[in-house]
């Protein structure tokens, strides 16, 4: 089983994701260059954190036109698991694979610190091993993680259980004081309708070893490994998975080059 880590110009958590997958979780990982023509037969794709194209213009706005993104869109449409972390989440929003957009953090400052997340949805390939309501400690490190969804989109997300993580107090309480960056409904991570594409601002890959302050992020990566193994087990299911409509927010944007 192999998990691809995309590398865009300006990605800088690519090595961290690779390290966590390969040396902590113990699965096979491979970098995929943004100009590559395919995903190298990977079972899952991670779009890592960083500052793709310097985050000039808007976060993730330029990276989503990278050739590899056309492959990621196809892969997602076929039901393949795609995880966007931080800048990777922003790329997924810009690409229209996930709904909503990002604003500057409330307070306008970059924030790097440990936060607590409540797991709101367990059914995805990234939360299969988590308990509903479980509180995970993970760092954030971003200047533009203030998630925005308009009321109709928010309703859709909530109604279909597509909010995957919310910023919470250490005991799991949700209230504005713990909404670290001002996100709509304290949203830290969401999924697409099918659940195979997930984006989140916090960094599970930085929280895989106790020596770094938390090992709670392992649950995300280990869930992924388990999901990939299960998919391999029932290989026949893979093609059916996404029903070919994974980009279907109606917002998938024109012309991924």
């Amino acid at each position: 089983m192999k998990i691809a880590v995309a590398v865009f110009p300006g990605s800088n958590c690519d090595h961290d994701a690779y390290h966590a997958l390969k040396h902590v979780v113990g699965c096979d990982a491979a970098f995929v260059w943004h100009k590559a023509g395919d995903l190298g037969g990977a079972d899952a794709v991670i779009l890592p954190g960083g500052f793709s194209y310097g985050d000039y213009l808007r976060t993730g706005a330029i990276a989503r036109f990278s050739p590899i993104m056309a492959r990621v869109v196809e892969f997602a449409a076929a039901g393949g698991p795609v995880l966007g972390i931080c800048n990777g989440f922003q790329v997924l929003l810009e690409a229209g694979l996930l709904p909503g957009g990002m604003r500057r953090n409330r307070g306008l400052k970059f924030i790097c610190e440990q936060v607590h997340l409540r797991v709101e949805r367990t059914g995805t390939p990234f939360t299969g091993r988590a308990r509903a309501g479980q509180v995970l400690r993970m760092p954030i490190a971003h200047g533009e993680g203030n998630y925005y969804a308009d009321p109709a989109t928010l309703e859709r997300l909530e109604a279909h259980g597509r909010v995957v993580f919310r910023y919470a107090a250490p005991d799991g309480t949700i209230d504005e004081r713990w909404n670290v960056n001002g996100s709509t409904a304290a949203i830290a991570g969401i999924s697409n309708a099918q659940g195979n594409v997930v984006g989140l601002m916090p960094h599970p890959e930085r929280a895989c070893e106790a020596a770094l302050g938390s090992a709670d992020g392992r649950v995300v990566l280990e869930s992924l490994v388990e999901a990939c193994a299960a998919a391999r087990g029932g290989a026949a299911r893979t093609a059916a998975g996404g029903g070919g409509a994974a980009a279907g927010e109606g917002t998938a944007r024109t012309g991924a080059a």
Partner: protein
Amino acid sequence: MSDASRDAVDREQAAAHGLTEGEFERIVAILGRRPNLVELGIFSVMWSEHCSYKSSRVHLRRLPTAGPHVLQGPGENAGAIAIDDELAAVFKIESHNHPSFIEPYQGAATGVGGIIRDIFTMGARPIALLDSLRFGPLDEPLARRILEGVVAGIAGYGNSIGVPTVGGEVGFDESYAGNPLVNVFCLGVVRRDALIRGRAEGVGNPVYYVGAKTGRDGIHGATMASAEFDDASAEKRPNVQVGDPFLEKLLLEACLEALRADAIVALQDMGAAGLTCSACEMGARGGVGIEIDITGVPQREAGMTPYEIMLSESQERMLFVVRRGGEAAVERIFAKWDLDAVRIGTVTGDGLLRVRHRGATVAEIPNRPLADEAPRYDRPVREPDDLAARQALDPEALRARPAPSPAEALLALLASPSVASTGWISRQYDHMVRTNTLLPPGQGPGVVRVKGTRRALAFSVDGNGRHCWLDPYRGAVLAVAESARNVACAGARPVAATNCLNFGNPERPEIMWEFARAVAGLGDACRALEVPITGGNVSLYNETEGRAILPTPVVGVVGILDDADRVLGGVFRRPDAVIVLLGAPGGATLGGSEYLRRIHGWTRGTPPAIDLAAEKALQGLVAALAADGRLDSAHDCAEGGLAVTLAECCFASGGIGAAITLPAPADEDPVAQATALFGEAATQVVVSTTEDDADEVLARARAAAVPAHVLGRTGGSRLRIANGGGAALVDLPLAEAEQAWSTGLSHHWEPSAA
């Protein structure tokens, strides 16, 4: 006769470039003719204080630079030490003080970009940054604006390029109001056999220009007015450079990839003095010539003259000497990263820096003399007349002043921006990217693990301008000791150091005296503590309106932990632990202390005396105890003395309080009490250890001849400090103390938080 001999300049133009009569004559002697304007520009930047160290070299020579760990001492882009048989750590500190005053965000950002380039030009991957900052008092809006911009600039560049800022320090004094200090330390890791130096070799090897395009950035203002230029270039230009961290990230990856492909003989970044400096220094180090044709230099602006191209300080550019046959590899790798890589020249055997432009030779200068025969000045020194007055501290005068109670004084000190939590700053820095950071900022020195080994590196930057103003020799010694002690407190063995010397105008004998004394102290301390200097930076002329900053040498010591799992923080870890003071309990003084400054507004007295042999023994003991897993925490005693140290050990511990009894005998005298609580001493560390290990810790201290004194226990939710007689001098709820500390800095921006 070459075309370069045409259009010779005169003495007046030389003077306008800041060259003295003597320097001009020396140039004429080196060339055997008068220089032309381009050559004059080249000499003026190479012989500037910034590039040639003409005022400081005679003193810097006295620094110890060799030691068992040192792989590369001063003279290259950065120093290097051995981590183990395979890996090296490359590190250096640099200042960007003046640009950060003019434009705080961009000044600080480009400073970060510059020091990161110094590290990867040695072939190393940068893995950590520290910043050492000084500003004016924060009640001034200008100081707040500068601090905010500087911090945002460091964050903007460091976060984006993906190098974590894992620690640093910040201090405040009126003298920095018009001249902030922005010193940034960077450390990288490289395989020892892949260390590369900026030494051009191999006649016929091609020379490449890589990275950003050249614009008219940073070309010296004084020379801009020269009639030689067209109107467009003579227009008054802001002397500000804008950094592009995205481009530098690409440059970093492309350089490391090209180095792995073994296509590069030498490389150097274009920092101060740009293309001129990099070409000349690489040629001089290798004893060869370099011929470049600058017609092909990628340019951002139209109509740039050779003078401007040679002197531009545009950021994010490098010069490579490529191994013949490696051209295709370099070009392919740079194309992959969407970067310019243009062949602009060749290594020659004639020892000349020859610059051609549109078919003409516009400069022709022997490399060696240009780089190495810069003038050196042994500038006059004079002890300041008021030194005795600075050092006078009359206890009677102090006793006569109204003073707050010990608890009030402690709260005031904890809320002092120089002592208070720097969380408001470090939260803006990505301190975790690369997943190596073992200590969060604020809990001790920076500590990063070295992936693929069991080891970790610890490093700290420290300096105290107040101490140095009162006694520059002792102040510098204390800075080295403190930095090494911080590293030891994380459980590391200090092995080497770098330094950044921030001073005023060296042409003033009093300033030069401060400089000379500080460098002497630095040298002696580094020798005694066995942390040789592998490089550094000198920043002079830090003055506004004739008033110099406090002399501020900043020292960065690097240490090695053999077992990364044994890293130690400065915060208590459990209740009922035994708190022990290691190091001589006497020796604390209010001279130069934060207490005097904060409570009485005084910078007076003599800073604490220090015995370097005792310091070395203490550091060795702490590192050894940590390595054996005998300690829970270790915290160095510095600004604010024992009381502040104890409070800091409790903060961020999740609410573990402490109760201690001061080692000093009971004394009703308020000055004696203040000295016992807030007096500062060198060579002291507060450790905590379990009941089970306490005896072993005390026995090991005895064996190492390090005084050890059991102060008390952790636990409860209060901070209680009693005098020798058992009476409480301070008894505060920990939460109240922590509130004062955690908002002392941030409330200047977030009043609601106060």
